[in-house]
């Protein structure tokens, strides 16, 4: 009795420790849509594979012993086969236990991960080329990924169209990662916990608070006064620095020599 009990206790401690190790999920293994957070998923998924069977695109596979994913649980690797975001979400419907949450009715609400443009050094758009592939394939184009225009400082005269992921719309389907034309994708879907920062809970964005309150919460609003030379003024509504036309003095005369001479005079 004691021998058996002791043996089984040792054995259980062994598999308990092993399970802790084996339950860790590598960053590039994504769970199907609607999957509960990983800690709950590992207790809710009974490893039946029905979600795998009902995936029409063979995106999902069941982890085998020796894979880095908990044995028997479903996952997909976006670079191999991304999620096609079926509107009827058959994998979730197939799940008998609700490890894939049946509350998920709109695939756009799925959060399998979050795309991150991880390598700005190799992303073609960051070099000023118009690859745009990740943007074009995104099922939530212009919401999950937008192209943000920036000045191209390398050429000095062109624009950069920077693919920019927005976490409020990105489902983590991985089509961008799959489509990236580089040898190794510059944009990758990562688990949200890795991809997103989280603001200190006591932090507040001043300008948002101000907008909410309808006015400054700290000191009364005051316009900063610039100490400008005569004949110049600053427009606070957005026009910026304005040279008064009739002041008679402009910084740059039509004859460049005048400007030079004036400088010399000023130094005397």
């Amino acid at each position, binding site marked *: *009795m004691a*021998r*058996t*009990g002791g*043996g*089984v*206790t040792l*054995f*259980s401690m062994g*598999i*308990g420790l*092993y*399970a*802790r190790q*084996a*339950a860790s999920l590598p960053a590039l293994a994504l769970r199907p849509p609607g999957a509960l957070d990983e*800690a*709950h998923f*590992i*207790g*809710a*998924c*009974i*490893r*039946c*594979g*029905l979600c*795998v*069977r*009902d995936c029409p695109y063979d995106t999902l*596979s*069941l*982890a*085998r*012993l*020796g*894979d880095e994913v*908990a*044995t*028997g649980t479903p996952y997909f690797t976006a670079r191999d086969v991304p999620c096609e975001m079926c509107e009827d979400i058959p994998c979730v419907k*197939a*799940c*008998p*236990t*609700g*490890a894939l949450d*049946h509350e998920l009715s709109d695939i756009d609400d799925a959060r399998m991960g979050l795309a991150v443009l991880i390598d700005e050094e190799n992303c073609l758009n960051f070099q000023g080329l118009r690859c745009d592939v990740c943007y074009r394939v995104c099922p939530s184009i212009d919401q999950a990924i937008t192209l943000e225009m920036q000045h191209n400082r390398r050429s000095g005269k062109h624009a950069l169209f920077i693919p920019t992921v927005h976490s409020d719309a990105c489902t983590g389907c991985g089509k961008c990662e799959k489509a990236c034309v580089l040898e190794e994708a510059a944009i990758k879907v990562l688990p949200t916990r890795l991809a997103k920062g989280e603001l200190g809970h006591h932090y507040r964005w001043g300008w948002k608070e101000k907008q909410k309150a309808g006015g400054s919460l700290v000191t009364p609003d005051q316009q900063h006064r610039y100490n400008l030379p005569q004949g110049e003024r600053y427009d606070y509504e957005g026009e910026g620095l304005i040279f008064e036309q009739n002041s008679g003095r402009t910084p740059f005369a039509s004859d460049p020599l005048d400007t030079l001479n004036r400088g010399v005079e000023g130094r005397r």
Partner: protein
Amino acid sequence: MKRTTRPGAEAVAVKGRWSANRWLLARRFTQLSILGLFMLGPWFGIWLVKGNLNASLTLDILPLTDPYVLLQSLLAGHRPEMVAITGALIVTAFYLLVGGRVYCAWVCPVNIVTDTAHWLRERLGITGAARLSSTARYWILAASLLLALFSGALVWEFVNPVSMLHRGLIFGMGLAWLLVLAVFLLDFLVSRRAWCGHLCPVGAFYSLLGVRSLLRVRADQREQCDDCMDCFLVCPEPKVIRPALKGADKGIGPVITSANCTNCGRCIDVCAKDVFRFGSRFGNRADKPGQTTHQSLGVEALR
């Protein structure tokens, strides 16, 4: 007395090769048919059954869930959808009726592995054995439930050779072959009937379902027993036979009532005297040995 013939040889001589292996063949047929139903999909694209023994969906309508794995999930703190619960209730009801360990003898794919290991062990005359308690499985069962409760994860599923083998055959094995090989070697070299008879918590769980089951093996003709010992030698759970077969003097009825009888029917096969047969648990009276009850007659008629 040193045995010179293999168990069942006399039965083959008396009843013929077919009758002396009838239930064994029926069992292999059932095991392979169930596995075959699951394999039709991945091999031939005929999706009658999807999933695996942990949970499956038959003909897109009948859900079946392993109550043991669902219980672990419940203990891990998850509230499953109704589909899984319905499936588990159907499975539970079935095994409450026919005996929980029918799962072991007629469904579980590991049974073929351990039976093969046992057969080889007997053929090669390997006798030395590590001492294992046959109650160890209940300890392991309790441990697997406690691990689920305290870790929030289905810990046993990380190592369970039963679900690994079945899932592996359908979805791909990976290194699960190693676990199956381990079970084989355990039964082949380490100890007789080590896995199914001593350690497996899945079998332990199902045995608890079978405590009051209706379908039983009965030693109704026990006065015919000539002590050839063949039934004890082939039985995967030899302890279960003795009370029913030899208990007449102690007032014990002829029904094998132990929850650990797997209803494999091998004892029926190898008995040259036809002592055993399938029947119900009712009419388990010691006073009239060999009396045929109307329930067992009913089962007899169905054959």
